[in-house]
C-alpha cells in the first residue's frame, strides 16, 4: 500500500467533493482505485480525471466512509492503490449517460474521447444542480442534456426520460452509462430494442480489488467485477442475471 497526501480539494456543494492526488500510475476511464482512510476503511472509487501530475477522484457523501472522507483536509495522507479493472473502450458518436456521482468516470471518458477526436453527446442527471459535477467542462466538449429531480438545472425529471428521442436526434451509435443500478435497468430496457451496443460502469461491494476474494462476482456469469469489470459490455451483461435485482453485502448475503 502506498500513501499520498491530498493535494487539493474542490467542494461542488454539500457532500460532493473532488480530491486531487499525485499521479503515480496511468489510469483509463472506468478503471478504479482503492482509497484507504487509515482507521476507517478502504473503498473503491473511479477516477474522474487525469490532469498532468494529478489524478482526480470525485465523491458524494453516502455512508460512513465517504462521510469521514468529507472531513479530510489538504495534506492528509490516504492510501491509494490501483488502477484496477477494465475501463471503457473508445467509440465514435457515443452518448454518455451519467446519473448522480456516476458522472465521475464519464468525465475521464469525455477527456479520452476528446483527445482522440471522437464525437460524443452527454446526458447527465442528478438530484440537484450542483451534483452535476463539472457541467461546464462537459459543455465545452460536447452537446449536453441535463436533468435534475428538482428542476434546478436542465429538465425536471429522470435522465432516461428523453433517452430514445436524444439517441435518434443526435444519431447515436454507442452508449456509455454510469450511475445507480436502476438507471442501467431502465437504460437497457430502452436501448435493447434499438440494437445499440453499450457499456455500463457498475458497482459492487469489494474487498480485495484484485480478483481473488470473490466478493464482487456477478450471478450468473461468474465475472469478477473488479477484474473483468467494472465496465461491462452488452455481451458480458447477457450473462448477468442479478442486474437491478440483488447484490451482496460484506458477509456475502444477498441483499
Amino acid at each position, binding site marked *: *500500500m502506498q500513501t499520498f497526501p491530498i493535494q487539493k480539494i474542490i467542494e461542488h456543494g454539500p457532500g460532493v467533493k473532488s480530491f486531487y492526488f499525485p499521479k503515480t500510475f496511468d489510469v483509463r476511464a472506468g478503471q478504479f482505485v482503492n482509497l*484507504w482512510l487509515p482507521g476507517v476503511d478502504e473503498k473503491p472509487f473511479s477516477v474522474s480525471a487525469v490532469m498532468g501530475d494529478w489524478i482526480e477522484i470525485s465523491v458524494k457523501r453516502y455512508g460512513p466512509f465517504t462521510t469521514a472522507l468529507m472531513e479530510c483536509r489538504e495534506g492528509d495522507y490516504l492510501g491509494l492503490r490501483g488502477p484496477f479493472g477494465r475501463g471503457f473502450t473508445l467509440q465514435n458518436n457515443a452518448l454518455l449517460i451519467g446519473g448522480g456521482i456516476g458522472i465521475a468516470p464519464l468525465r475521464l471518458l469525455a477527456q479520452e474521447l476528446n483527445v482522440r477526436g471522437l464525437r460524443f453527446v452527454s446526458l447527465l442527471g442528478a438530484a440537484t444542480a450542483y451534483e452535476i459535477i463539472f457541467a461546464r467542462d462537459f459543455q465545452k466538449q460536447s452537446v449536453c442534456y441535463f436533468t435534475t429531480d428538482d428542476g434546478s438545472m436542465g429538465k425536471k425529471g429522470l435522465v432516461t426520460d428523453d433517452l430514445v428521442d436524444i439517441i435518434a436526434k443526435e444519431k447515436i451509435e454507442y452508449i456509455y452509462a454510469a450511475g445507480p443500478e436502476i438507471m442501467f435497468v431502465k437504460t437497457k430496457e430502452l436501448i435493447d430494442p434499438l440494437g445499440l451496443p453499450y457499456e455500463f460502469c457498475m458497482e459492487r461491494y469489494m474487498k480485495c480489488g484484485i480478483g481473488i*476474494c*470473490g*466478493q464482487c462476482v456477478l450471478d450468473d456469469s461468474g465475472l469478477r467485477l473488479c477484474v473483468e469489470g467494472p465496465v461491462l459490455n452488452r455481451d458480458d451483461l447477457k450473462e448477468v442475471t442479478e442486474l437491478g435485482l440483488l447484490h451482496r453485502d460484506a*458477509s*456475502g448475503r*444477498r441483499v
Partner: protein
Amino acid sequence: MKTIHLIKPDFLNLKMDSPLVLASGILGLTASSMARVIRFGAGAVTSKSFNLEWRKGHRNPSIIPFEHGLLNAVGLSNPGVDEMVKEIRLFRQKSEAPIFASIFGRTIEEFAEVAKRAAEARPHLIEVNVSCPNVRSEFGTPFGDSPQDTAQITRLVKKAAGDIPVSVKLGPHGPGIGLMARVCEENGADAITAINTAGPGMLIDIRVRKPVLSNKTGGISGPAILPIAVKSVYEVYENVRIPIIATGGVTHWQDAVQMLLAGATLIGVGTAVYYEGMEVFGKINKGIEGYMRENGFSALKELRGLAHE
C-alpha cells in the same frame, strides 16, 4: 477444458479431471464464481469457510499484496450456512466437478452443527477449518493449535457428516503439523488439508505509521510460504496414510510437482490467481502433464511422495 487423462487424481474415489482444487477463501462465495473456476481447469472447488450465522468479517483493508504474497485478515466473513447450502446445491446443478464445503465454528459444538447442516447440500467433502489465524481477538487461540480440541472436532464433524468424507485443514504452526495430522487420522479424518495461511504477519505504512490491515495482523499466502507448505506436506506424509490436499504458495506447475513429490494427492491453488489470473489452473495442469510425459510417469500416484527415502 479438455480432459487430460494423465493428470486425473485418485482421491477418495471422486471423479476429477485435474488434481488442482480451488483453495478455500478464494472466489468461493457463489456457485457462479466456483463454476467459472472449473471452466478454467480446476478439478474441484472449495467453498469459502462458513459457520451457522452470517459474519461481516473485518473491515477493509482486509487483503493487501506485498512483494512475495498477500497478507489477509478477511475475518471469516460469510453469509451463513443457509445461504451457502443454497450455493453448494446450485454449484452441483451447474457442474459435475466435486465441491468441498469449508466449515468452521466459534465453538467445538458449532463445528458439528455446521457440518450436519452442510451435509444437507451433499458436498463431496467437508473441509474443517480449525486453523484460521485471523480471528484470535474474537475466538482466542485456533482450535488447530490444540491436539485435544482438534481430536474432538474431528470426531464430532465426522459423525455429523455421515457418509461425506472429512478433511481437516491444519496450519503450519502450533504443536507440530505431523503430530496434528496423526491426531486427525486417529480420530477418523479421511484427508488432511495442509496448510492454512502462515503467520500471522503484519505490514505497517511508514507515512501513516499504522498497520495497514484493519485487523492489524493477517495470514500470509502466496510464493512467500511455498517452502513452509512443502515442508509441512512432507511432514504430514511421513505421519499419516490418508491423502493430503497440499495448499500454500503454489503458483507455477513446478510448485505443484514439488507438492506431489512431498506427498500430495491434490493441490490447492488460491493466491496464484492474483499472480497468474484465472488461466493459472490450465497452465499448471499443462505443466504437470508435460513433466510427467518428459519423465515417463503414467499416473499421478507414481510421483506421490518420491522425495521421501
